[in-house]
C-alpha cells in the first residue's frame, strides 16, 4: 500500500503534479489533495452522481476512478463553471438553477450541474423526458427534480439563443 505514483493532470485549467497512492479515489484526491471541496461524495459506489466531474470532455463519477487513472487528463469540476469561480459571476446554467430554485441543500448540485453541462453540450434535450432521462444517474433527495428539469429546460433555450 505504500507504493506511490507520480501523476500530472490539469484541473480547471491548472496543472498539478502530485504523488499519490494508487488506491486514492479521484474524488478524495480532488477534495483532500487539491482542496476542491465543491465535488461531493454521496455514496462512493457509483449510484448517486454527486461526485460527477468532467474528464476529457465526458461526465464521469469521480468515486469510480482512481486519481492515478486521471494521469494526463483534463478535468473540470464545479469550481470551473463561474468566471474565476466567483459567487458573483454565475454562468447561465448556474443562474438558471438559481432562478428556478433547482437546489435546496445543494449537496447533489455540483453533480447535477456537471451532468447538465455535459448533456447541454451533447444532446438536443428537445423534451422534458430527455432531460429527465439524462439526469437519471443523479439522485436528488430534496427537490423532487421538478425545478431542476425546469432549470435545464431554460438552459437549453439559452443555448439555442446563443447558437442563433
Amino acid at each position, binding site marked *: *500500500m505504500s507504493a506511490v505514483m507520480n501523476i500530472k493532470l490539469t484541473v480547471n485549467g491548472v496543472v498539478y503534479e502530485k504523488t499519490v*497512492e494508487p*488506491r*486514492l479515489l479521484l474524488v478524495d484526491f480532488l*477534495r*483532500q489533495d487539491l482542496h*476542491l*471541496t*465543491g*465535488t*461531493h*461524495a*454521496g*455514496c*462512493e*459506489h457509483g*449510484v*448517486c452522481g*454527486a461526485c460527477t466531474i468532467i474528464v476529457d470532455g465526458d461526465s464521469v463519477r469521480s468515486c469510480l476512478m482512481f486519481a492515478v487513472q486521471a494521469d494526463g487528463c483534463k478535468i473540470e*469540476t*464545479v*469550481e470551473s*463553471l*463561474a468566471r474565476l*469561480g466567483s*459567487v*458573483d459571476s*454565475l454562468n447561465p446554467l*448556474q443562474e438558471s*438553477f*438559481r*432562478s428556478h*430554485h433547482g*437546489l*435546496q*441543500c*445543494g*449537496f*447533489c*448540485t*455540483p453533480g447535477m*450541474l456537471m451532468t447538465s453541462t455535459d448533456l447541454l453540450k451533447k444532446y438536443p434535450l428537445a423534451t422534458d423526458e430527455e*432531460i*429527465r*432521462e439524462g*439526469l*437519471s*444517474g*443523479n*439522485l*436528488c*433527495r*430534496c*427537490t*423532487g*427534480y*421538478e*425545478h*431542476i*428539469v425546469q432549470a435545464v429546460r431554460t438552459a437549453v433555450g439559452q443555448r439555442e439563443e446563443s447558437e442563433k
Partner: protein
Amino acid sequence: MQTRPKIIGTAAKRLEDPRLLTGHGSYVDDKTPAGTLHVAFRRSDQSHATILSIDCSEALKMPGVVAVLTARDLEGLVKPVVATSKMRDYHATPIYPLARDKVRYVGEPVVAIVAESRYLAEDALEGIAIEFDTLPNVVDPEQAAAPDAPLLHEDAGTNVIVRREFLRGDVDLAMAAAAIRVNRRFRFHRKTPMAIETRTYLAEYDQGRKSLQLHTTSQIPGIIRDVLTDILDLPTVRVVAPDVGGGFGGKASVYQEEILVCILARKLGRPVKWTGDRLEDLSSTSQGFDEIVEAELGLDEQGRILALTAEVVGDIGAYSIYPWTAGLEPVQVVSFLPGPYRVAHYRGRVRAVATSKPPTGPYRGVGRPTSTFVMERLMDMAAQKLGLDPREIRLLNFVSQEEFPYKTASGIVWDRSGFTECLTSACAAFDYEGQRAAQAVARAAGRWVGIGIASYAELTGIGSRISASPGMPINTGTETATLKIDSTGAVTAAFGVASHGQGLETTLAQVVAEELGARLAAVTIIHGDSAAVPHGTGTYASRSAVLAGGAATLAARALREKVERMSAHLLGVTAAEVMVADGFAFVPGSDKKISFRELAKAVYSEVGRIPAEARESLEETKLYDPFFGTTTCSTHVTQVEIDPETYVIKVQRYQVAEDCGRIINPLIVAGQVHGAVAQGIGAALFEEMVYDEMGQLLTASLVDYLVPTAVEIPSIGVSHLDTESPSTVGGFRGMGEGGTIGAPAAIANAVADALNHLNILIDELPVTPERIFQLIKNKEK
C-alpha cells in the same frame, strides 16, 4: 419609498445559492483542520449477540493507527444518553457510544479505530477480532411483543417500550350499529431518510479553555450542545451545523458516532473526524415508519363516519432514540389516524416494540404517512361499498368551517384550515371529471389506469403546550431571534433553527427585511450554531417558518421601533413621523432621510448626536411560542398506469393543493412540496429497508434501496391556498413534510383503483411489481 416594499410572499432568489452553486458551500466534510485524525468503526455483523471478547492487538500495530477503543475504554469518560419521557408505560433504553456487553443490531458501532487518515483507519478494521455469542433474534415486532419473547433490553423487562391508547365515545356500540364496515390489516414497511450527504462529525477540543467545538451534519445543534455538555461534563460546548446536505429527520437525533468524536478529541488532543459512508448510513442512521395497523371504519348508509378502531404495532428498532423516544413515530400514527374527518367514536391502541434492527426516529411526515395511508384506504374501501365517488365521501365527512376549532378524537385541535377547499382546489387543477372520463375510455381499451385521492391534516409549528414527540421532556415549542444592526449598519439575525435545504437564510431574511424595513440582500441570517442564541432546538417537525418566522417578526418589529426612536432624534421629528423601509429611516413627504449605516454611526460612534439618556443599542431579542401550533392540510390527486404485463407502475399526473398559511416564498414552498411528494412516491412504490429473519440488511446499497430518480417522478402541480393561520404570529403554517404524508396514500388509492377490476386490495407499501404479481397470483389460486 412612500410605501413599504412587500418582500414576504415574493419568489425571492435564495441568498444561499451562489455559494452552493459554485462549490463554495461549507459542509462538515469540507473542513479538515491541520492534524485531524480520522475514525473508522468496526460495527456489529450480528443482530443480537453477547460480546465475548474483542481483540484489537493487530489493529494497533497497523500503519497510522493512533488509538483503538472499545466500550471498556470509555468507562468514566461519558454518561449514557437516555431519552426519558413523561409517558406512562414507557421504558427508556440507555445509549452508549460503543456497544457494551451485547449488540442489538447489525451496524451498531462496537470498536472505534483512530488513525492518521480515513484510508488507514479503514485498513485497520481488518485487525479487529470480535467473538460473539449469538442470542435469539428479535426481528419480528409482533413476536417480540409476546410475553415470552427474548428480551433486547433486560432492564426494561419487556420489548414493548411504549403502550398508549386513545379513546373517545362508545366505539363498540357505534361500530356495531354501523351499516357499512370496512377493515383490513395494513403494512407500511421500513424506510431510510437517505439524505445525499452522509452523517459526518468533526470535533475539536481546546485544552487551554476546556472547550469543545463540534461541527456536525445535524438538524438539532442546540439539543446536541445541551446533551454533550451533560454527558461529557464540560463547561463549554459549541455545536455548529454549517451547510448540511439534507436531513429529513435522519439528522435530527443524537448519534453514537457524534458523541464518540467528541470524547476522542478531548482524549487525544487533536481534531477528530468521522465521515460516514453510504453503507454506514443505510445501516445506522435512524430509519422511519415500519408499522402494522389493523383498522376498522364504520359508517352509516349515507357514508357518514360513525366509528374508527385501530391496533398499531410499531417496529422501533433497537433503541429509544434521543431526544424523541420510541413513542415519536408509532404514537403519532394513532393520534393522527382520524385525519381531517369528524370521528365521534374512536379507539386507537399502539405498542412500540423494540427489535434487533437500527433504531427508528423521525422521518419526514412522522407517523402521518402511515395514518394517512390507512385512513385514506379505508375511506376508499368504504366509498366503493357505498357506490360513492372517493371525492364525495371525503366532502361528506370533513370537519367544516363552522366546526373549527375542532377537537379530534385523539385530542388534537384543528384551529382552522381549508379541508374542503383543498380537495376542491386539487380536483379542479387536476380536472378530476375530465380525467375520470379519460380513465373510463382507457379502461375500456384494457389499460390499467387508476386515480387516487388523499386528504390529510397535520399539526405544525408546535408550541410549548404540546410536545413535538409525546411525553418528551425537552421544550421544542419556543424559538429565539436576536436581531442586530451593528456599527457598520449591517443587519444580522440569529436563530436556533438549522437550515439544511429549506432556504431559511432567505425566507427568514424576507421576514426580517419586511418587518424591519431593511433591504433583503443586506440581511444576514445566522443559524445552525448553538452559540448564536441562548436556546434553540433546530429544524424539524415543520416548525421553523412558524416559530423562527414568528420570533423574527416580533424582534424585527421591536427593532424597527428603536430605529424610529433613534432616527427621530437625528431627523428632528417625533418617532411617530418616521418610517423605515429599504434600509432607510425617513419622514414621508420630506427629504429627511438617514441610512442604517449613518444611523448606526450616530448611535455607536458619534457620541452626542443622540442624547445619552435616550441612546439605545440597536438590537432586540424576542422569544416566540405559538403554544399549540396550527393546522396545515392538503389534498393530493394522482393518476397512475400499470403495465398489465410487467406490473410496472408509472405515475403520470400529480396535483397537490395545500393550505400552508401565509406564504413567505412561493418558489420555496413549491420546492418543499415537490421534494416531499417525491419522497412519498418513493415510499409508496420503491423504497423498503429489507431485513431477513436473522436481522441482516438485504438492501445495503443504493442499488438495492431504490430512491426515485427524475424518470420516476412526474411533473408535480401545486396549488396554494393562501389563508393566514389564525393562531400564529405572521400567519405562517408549517409545510415541509406534508408531501410525504399525502403521497403514499394517494398512490396506494390510485394503484388500488387501477387494479379494481381484479378485485385486489392494496394494504401494503411499497407496492412493487413483485407485490402486485403475488397479489394477482394469490387471487388466481
